[in-house]
C-alpha cells in the first residue's frame, strides 16, 4: 500500500535550524492529514493536522503545509531541538471512512546539539 509515501528514511539537522519532513500521497480522496511523532517503546503522539480546505496550519514550532495540486505535505519544525529526535509519521484519511488513517513509513529525525 503506497498511498502515503515518506521518501526520506532519515534526516539529520543541527539544533536551532529548521527541520523539513516531507510526505507525498496518491489518493485524491484524502481530505485530512496528520503528523505523528514516535519515540521507541511508545505509541504515536499527535503533533499537528490539516484539513484539505487549508494550505497551512501552525502550532508553536510546528507548521504543516499542504499542496493539494502536488499531493504533497510537509512538516516544518523551527527551531529544532534535540528532544525532537524521533520517528515522524505522516498519515491521511478520506471521507467516508472517518478516521481510518493510512500511514507513511516514517522518517527518523536526528537533531544534533
Amino acid at each position, binding site marked *: *500500500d503506497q498511498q502515503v509515501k515518506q521518501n526520506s528514511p532519515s534526516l539529520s539537522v543541527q539544533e536551532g535550524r529548521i527541520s523539513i519532513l516531507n510526505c507525498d500521497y496518491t489518493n485524491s480522496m484524502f*481530505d*485530512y492529514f*496528520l503528523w*505523528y511523532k514516535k519515540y521507541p*517503546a*511508545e*505509541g*504515536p*503522539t*499527535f503533533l499537528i*493536522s490539516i*484539513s484539505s480546505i487549508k494550505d497551512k496550519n501552525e502550532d508553536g514550532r510546528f507548521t504543516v503545509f499542504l499542496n493539494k495540486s502536488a499531493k504533497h505535505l510537509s512538516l516544518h519544525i523551527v527551531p529544532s531541538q534535540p528532544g525532537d529526535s524521533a520517528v515522524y*509519521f505522516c*498519515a491521511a*484519511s478520506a*471521507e467516508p*471512512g*472517518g*478516521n*481510518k*488513517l*493510512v*500511514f*507513511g*513509513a*516514517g522518517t527518523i529525525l536526528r537533531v544534533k546539539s
Partner: protein
Amino acid sequence: EPEVTQTPSHQVTQMGQEVILRCVPISNHLYFYWYRQILGQKVEFLVSFYNNEISEKSEIFDDQFSVERPDGSNFTLKIRSTKLEDSAMYFCASSERTANSPLHFGNGTRLTVT
C-alpha cells in the same frame, strides 16, 4: 493530559492460543480503534468501533479477530487462535469525532507468538 492506556505492554503466547489485548480510551472519546505495526512495516488500520459496534474493518481483521467494549471504560481486542504472523505491536487509539479529529494512541502491546 488524558491518555490512552494499554495492558499488557508485552504478551508472549503460543501459536493457536487466544489472547486479549486491553485498552482504556480517553474518557470523553466516543470512537475507538485498533492499529498494528509489524516489525519493519507501516502502522496499519485494523478496526474502528463506535456505539458498541464495528464501524469499519480492514482485510486483516478476519474472523479470528473481535473487539468488545465490555464496560464503560475498557476496549478489548481478542485474537482467537494466534498465528506466527500476528506478532506485532498493537496500538489502541481513540478520538472525539469520526472525521477531522486526531487519533490519540496508547503505547501499544507487543505481541509475540511463538
